[in-house]
């Protein structure tokens, strides 16, 4: 973060000048004066929503400000004002927004990027509905001693119906080979996302990529790819075999995939992730090897994955399983 920013006014001063009541709880962990000043922008937007005031809403933007909301692409303050005015007369009548900051990053003394999470509560909603949850990126710039919104875009957290999986794709007509490829990709991406469980983001999400990569490689019975997830001196305890490096792991897995493990899948769900340091972590999962043609492992095991971050990427240092049943 730059030691100084070009807007000198405090958050309190900026909000007072805009006639907006300061929400002291909004800032969360972002307590630095410059961060708070930048966060006046989402507070002003919130206030404009609460008042259903399209003019106040548009005034937060720069003249060439741009708003991407679902499928509406608005590229000037005038367009934004007109769109919101119409909205507040119709579908957005009585609506308000909720949100909280996830990150504040200064790109220079006069440009900041803020990420928030939240969403719109329509007139009748008692609380933020799962299908309305979004994450937004705000590009905020210094203009005439104040922070102003240059660009706002939001992405939904979930599919229609609020469930992470959402509903299957539209058309599956046999003639549309192209949409079928895309449909498969969409379905696979959704299933993949669910594998992260409650550890979607942050360092834990990054650590969890290690068992997920092994799972993906196992699904293709790809011994090279499995070995590739390990560090050079990674080790794997399999039954009575202690495999001490990548090459031994690769050779063992190649033989196994040609024999008893041919066509099997690895099915594991995360139980816990513990950071031991900035670049060492332990992930514990439960599940097991699913025999070819089946959907569940015959007996569950608990797996400990010791992982380490090397050159920016989390890798597998050690893999060991223990049966659950005695």
């Amino acid at each position, binding site marked *: 973060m730059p030691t100084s920013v070009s807007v000198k006014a405090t958050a309190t001063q900026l909000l007072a000048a805009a006639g907006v009541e300061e929400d002291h709880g909004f800032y969360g962990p972002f307590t630095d004066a410059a961060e708070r000043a930048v966060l006046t922008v989402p507070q002003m937007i919130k206030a404009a929503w609460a008042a259903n005031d399209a003019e106040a809403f548009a005034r937060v933007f720069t003249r060439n400000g741009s708003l991407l909301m679902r499928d509406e692409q608005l590229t000037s303050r005038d367009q934004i004002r007109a769109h919101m005015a119409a909205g507040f007369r119709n579908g957005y009548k009585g609506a308000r927004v909720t949100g909280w900051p996830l990150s504040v990053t200064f790109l220079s003394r006069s440009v900041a990027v803020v990420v928030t999470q939240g969403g719109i509560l329509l007139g009748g909603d008692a609380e933020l509905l799962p299908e309305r949850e979004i994450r937004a*990126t705000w590009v905020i710039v210094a203009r005439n001693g104040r922070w102003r919104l240059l660009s706002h875009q*939001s992405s939904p957290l*979930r599919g229609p119906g609020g469930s992470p999986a959402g509903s299957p794709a539209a058309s599956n007509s046999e003639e549309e080979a192209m949409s079928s490829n895309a449909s498969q990709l969409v379905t696979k991406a959704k299933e993949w996302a669910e594998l992260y469980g409650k550890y979607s983001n942050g360092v834990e999400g990054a650590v969890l990529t290690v068992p997920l990569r092994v799972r993906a490689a196992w699904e293709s019975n790809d011994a090279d790819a499995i070995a590739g997830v390990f560090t050079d001196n990674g080790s794997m305890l399999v039954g009575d075999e202690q495999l001490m490096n990548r090459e031994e792991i690769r050779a063992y897995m190649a033989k196994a995939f040609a024999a008893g493990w041919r066509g099997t899948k690895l099915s594991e769900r995360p139980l816990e992730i513990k950071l031991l340091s900035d670049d060492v972590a332990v992930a514990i999962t439960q599940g097991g090897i699913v025999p070819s043609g089946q959907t569940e492992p015959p007996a569950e095991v608990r797996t400990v994955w010791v992982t380490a971050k090397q050159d*920016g990427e989390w890798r597998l240092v050690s893999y060991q399983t223990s049966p659950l049943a005695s």
Partner: protein
Amino acid sequence: MSTTLAPGAPTKEQLDAYYGSFTEEKQKEALSVPLRLVAAWAKNDAAGVASVFSEDGILILPGDVFKQGRDEIQSFMAAAYAGPFKGTGVTGRPVDLRFVSDDVALVRTHGGILAPGEKEIDPELAVRSTWVCVKRDGQWQLAAYQNSPRGAGATLRW
């Protein structure tokens, strides 16, 4: 209509088609950011994709994907390329480019993921992307990337 860049270094014609109306040198420099990301994705190169981002870069995708910093991005992409993104490409064309300052540019593209073997964006995978690009030490980097579904048929969520 989108421009798909064939694997390997793009030809001058392909680049000119990609740049469209953004022909000033400064604009092309900023557009090197999406071009480099597309090239890294074509090789399913997680480290390559991460290297386009700034050290504290941000990646937001529909669904519950919010990655902060090159390392989180690299691990996420490595897993995605082992899983559902294996063999995919990505394509897009710039629709808006504005300089916030000499060192910060806001690029918007229309594009999407290409399923393995596909050359055209399927409506289900169509997205609008915002690329917040920053120039550091003479190199343009991706400070924040976000996309959201474009069009009624777009269904991709994580």
